């Protein structure tokens, strides 16, 4: 299934599925059983055999990723 992830994935704590951004407003999800699906940034299904997804994880993964963490920031 294309496209390929454009950033490293995050494993969902409950389902074990791995979420990774794969382009603008697209998230690739690989379920624990190996099934995959492509979803948009709020979890709407685009393609693939995987249908169930956590929309909030899609929001997180698809967001413009900001490099600086408020837990480590040196801005002050």
């Amino acid at each position, binding site marked *: 299934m294309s496209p390929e992830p454009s*950033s*490293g*994935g*995050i*494993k*969902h*704590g*409950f389902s074990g599925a*791995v979420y*990774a951004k794969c382009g603008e407003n697209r998230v690739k999800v690989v379920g624990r059983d190996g099934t995959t699906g492509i979803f948009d940034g*709020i979890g709407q299904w685009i393609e693939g055999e995987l249908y169930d997804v*956590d*929309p*909030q*994880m899609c*929001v*997180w993964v698809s*967001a*413009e*990723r*900001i490099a*600086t*963490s*408020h*837990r*480590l*920031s*040196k*801005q*002050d």
Partner: protein
Amino acid sequence: MALTPDDLTDDLPLQRSPGPTWQDKLDEDVNKIPEYLRTESPYLNGFEDIPKDRYLSREFHELEKERLWSRVWQFACREEHLPEVGSYIVYDIADQSYLVARVAEDEIKAYPNACLHRGRMLKTYDGRCSEFRCPFHGFAWTLDGDIKHIPAEWDFPHLEVRSEEMMLPEVRVGTWAGFVFINPDPNAEPLEDFLGPEVIKHFERWNLQDRYVAAHASKIIRCNWKIANESFCEGFHVNATHPQGMSYTGDPQSQIDVYGNVARQLSPKGIPCPLLPYTPTEEEMLRDALDVREGEDLPVPFEEGDTLRGVLSAAGRERFRPTFGDGVDQMGDSEFLDAWVYVVHPNFQPWGAFNRIVYRFRPNGDDHETCIFEMMYVAPFSGDRPPPAEVVHLGVDDPWTDATGLEKLAMVAEQDTFNMEQVQRGLKNLRREGVTLSRYQESTIRWKHDLLTDYINRGPVQL
């Protein structure tokens, strides 16, 4: 034994989440916090639902205008937003607008934002001035509110005998921790009494007055202001709204305390959510806390035996050492890594310790179905005070991540905001009269509504 309706009183023993508590983690920390910061003050007041009309009805919004916003202490700006004599800001709340101005080196005053001639707003944006001059006919007032100029004074003989009516009416002003508050009620209790001695003592330790606004963003949300506000009044939502944070955030283990008009929620880091079906390692928790994804390296050293709490508190301590000096060594580990969410009734959340976070929630003008949600960082500084950050104004469909100064917190807010509009819409579909709250984890929301009820029941403000 099964509970019966008669068992549902405040005498029913209070249950807390399984697993270690915030207090348990404090016991393990190398650097402890003082005992007065550890006191517990839970809030219990029944099990009733919160009527959904409070979020949906125009009538309730009108009651809030008449009986809440007209008599409550409310955060207007930071003192640094008024750096010079003559600096002023326009503070809007619902359909009301106030001018908040520095009128002397050590004095701030606030006035309803209206010319006493024909009622035009005197100012519509923040700035600096030597007088308040109305752009309509040119009536002018001194910074102190005295009438200074009446154009064509010969035509206003009646004002000569009613001169006291031409002073700008004052609104109560108070300052605390660098925050400027106003209260339109002339009979309001002093701000210090409103905040209470416990909370004032807590914040004395963190010197928020010696910080500056390092980032500030404002976004319009399509929901009632209370829906947005209450999204940040409980940690219960983390397991569903922030699933990437479950491994390291023990939000169900949060401690919730209420001190009069201020509540706080203390959420520990380094405790997995007890709903998780596995136990993450300390390194896994740290990776998630810093959003380190598959194939990426941790940006901080981590060795065998290290813990999230140890690593993040040490990083936080070094981060603040340049501004606080070695005083950071006297601070507790918790103060550098846990969420210290203080909730000041009705709409203000200055986080305690070294989180830097400040939230404010207001109705969007006179519209009860949209609101303005603001996030700021108040950060320490070295040397001269930097100017406060300009506000990044975000529209309803602009992502928080456009405000890059908020760092990764913007990504977190994106998830919270994803819920807010859908709560507003969902409440209209709800086939119940109210929403149900958990007894402990969501008790801050009950407390907020109980206070709101108290304000509503007092009737209109007596001017």
